[in-house]
């Protein structure tokens, strides 16, 4: 089959690999119809995530048709149209049973490596480094889906591929980012990053009853999406001072909750600050550039919530612990426990409360994956989300 493989920093290729086969009794094989490139795939593309190997198949957002199931999979049958959550979760460990699917205790066969860096191991993730399991990803013609009796859900015909594939990662991730803010009536929510997750976090904040939603980015075309589809207010951080602007907008209180939907490759309006962290990151003294996180902490109202759904992999410097501690802030975070959200969010789409596919800017065939990565990386052609059609 054809698959998109990581070939080193800034290099992906569509290569021929063997077809996947059932390896565990609870596996299914899915013939992929639509798969997406995630912003977090760019962290891999740029080489910021450790434990990648040349030839690793990328992709953790995918859907398609079940073609084969292992003997223990009874809820699915060949022919079912399914969308697959990006975290691989067994459903039976105590984390899974508490709904914490992205920290499944059994799905990372390389847990020993992850423990050395993170203390304990999170769940395995499709196509996301050997640190997180060494699973082949879904930017391919077929994928093996472990624990198919727990993760994938069937998608009704009236839901399009473009809508359903949003349930693999970005919509649940954005939704969880908003849900962690514990939004009360009248609250103001600020979101750093107007990529797919930031935009869907903003849309979810609306669904969850936020009074005002403020989106911060530097690309006018993305801020325009936030204004047009979510009726959000926007701040372009390359033009104005974010903290001053937020204070002015909230009459000095600061947003009630701040969502970091940016993660480890943040940019910064202040060139000197950006150069400082970029240099440290290049020298591997620091693995992340956490401007958005620092700013979210400083901006947040005292006693408010900082919700982090942007991806981090290692260590951050200059963490404003003084502001965080003295102002009684709360931080909530996590890779999304997608399995918790797929059904309720599918129902919201069915009821017409939201169409998350408004973020999709590009659709192209799988063979054009290298081009998709390039334009997404360079933000060319007003790119927000690239879908690959198989």
């Amino acid at each position: 089959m054809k698959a998109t493989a990581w070939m080193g920093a800034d290099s992906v290729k569509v290569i021929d690999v063997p077809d996947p086969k059932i390896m565990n009794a609870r596996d299914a094989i899915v013939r992929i119809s639509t798969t997406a490139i995630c912003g977090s795939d760019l962290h891999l593309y740029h080489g910021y995530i450790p434990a990648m190997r040349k030839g690793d198949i990328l992709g953790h957002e995918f859907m398609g048709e079940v073609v084969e199931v292992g003997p223990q999979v009874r809820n699915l049958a060949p022919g079912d149209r399914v969308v697959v959550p990006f975290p691989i979760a067994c459903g039976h460990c105590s984390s899974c049973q508490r709904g914490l699917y992205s920290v499944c205790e059994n799905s990372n066969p390389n847990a020993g490596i992850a423990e050395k860096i993170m203390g304990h191991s999170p769940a395995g993730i499709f196509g996301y480094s050997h640190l997180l399991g060494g699973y082949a990803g879904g930017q391919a013609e077929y994928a093996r889906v472990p624990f198919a009796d727990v993760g994938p859900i069937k998608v009704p015909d009236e839901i399009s591929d473009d809508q359903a594939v949003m349930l693999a990662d970005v919509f649940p991730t954005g939704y969880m980012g908003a849900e962690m803010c514990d939004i009360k009536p009248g609250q103001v929510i600020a979101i750093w990053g107007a990529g797919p997750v930031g935009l869907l976090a903003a849309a979810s904040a609306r669904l969850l009853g936020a009074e005002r939603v403020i989106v911060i980015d530097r690309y006018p075309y993305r801020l325009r999406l936030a204004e047009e589809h979510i009726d959000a207010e926007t701040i372009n951080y390359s033009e104005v001072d974010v903290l001053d602007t937020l204070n002015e907008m909230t009459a000095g209180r600061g947003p009630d909750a701040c969502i970091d939907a940016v993660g480890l490759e943040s940019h910064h309006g202040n060139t000197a600050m950006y150069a400082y962290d970029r240099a440290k990151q290049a020298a591997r003294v620091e693995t992340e550039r956490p401007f958005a996180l620092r700013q979210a902490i400083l901006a947040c109202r005292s006693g408010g919530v900082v919700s982090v759904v942007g991806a981090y992999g290692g260590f951050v410097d200059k963490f404003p612990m003084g502001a965080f501690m003295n102002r009684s802030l709360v931080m909530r975070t996590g890779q999304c426990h997608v399995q918790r959200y797929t059904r309720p969010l599918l129902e919201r789409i069915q009821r017409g409360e939201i169409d998350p596919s408004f973020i999709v800017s590009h659709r192209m065939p799988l063979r054009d994956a290298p081009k998709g990565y390039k334009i997404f990386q360079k933000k060319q052609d007003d790119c927000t989300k690239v879908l690959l059609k198989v």
Partner: protein
Amino acid sequence: MSRVDTVLLPELDGPVPATLPGALGLLSLALGVGALVAPGPVARLTGVDDSPAARSVLSAIGLRELGSAAGLLSGRRPSGWAWSRVAGDAMDLTLLGRALADRSGERRHRVALTTLAIAGITAVDLLAAVRVGRARRARARVIRMEIAVTVNRSPAEAYRFWRDMENLPRFMAHLESVRADDLRRSHWIARGPAGRRVEWDAEIIDDQPNKSITWRSLPGSGVPNAGRVRFVPGPGDRGTEVRVELRYAPPAGALGRAVAKLFGEEPEQQVRDDLRRFKQVLETGEVVRSEGSPNGISVRQQAMQRPAQPLPASRR
């Protein structure tokens, strides 16, 4: 935490076997006292009574023997004292060699007999020194570990799975098979590097249903080993804390090196991985595999990942 150390491996625990060094200590005592109290008769018996220096040399040897006797009978540092006897033997043999060279007749005959006797004692001393040293080094090689994992199953379920010893290879990566001979005894075969197998018999020596199982290898195993697993209810209704205590004494030499490789560079990590697999099997039904780690969790595999893409047909 209770310790397996003292109960489980009689061949490795307790004092270093001291029968032979003790006997040699008594011999030293007898020789030392004889040489000091009756240097005349001893000199005549050994055929050196014609030498003017014989009496003073014999007294010195007597004092040396008393020193060795005190050391050996004290039971402390038996290896060092056994070697001190070997050194003394070497000195005596040198002196006797010289005495033999310039004597003839009856005296030469007696010196020769004495030399023969001392040579015999030297052989016994060497044996004792080597054996005591080996026992001490075996003790020093013993590897002990205590590792635990929390499993989201009841103590009864976890106990039941482990109690069927034939299940062990399903999660202990280095085991090829375990055959239960009866409810107590079992035969274990471990996979070594380069197709080398290590086998031993084991017995369950304590069995507390739903609480703990204690086993040890039977005497004569090339790799004396013992273990205890306890199944402790996790606090807050969180399944079972499976707590394993293990110890084994890899032999020296080629077999020892094979056993060391068997347990990898980090034996603790390997046992930790075994327990992780135990958890996977109990919670999910089998060992979890990925394309990069097609055999599931393994220390060695973590270092040698294949690309995360489907396996070629030849490797399935």
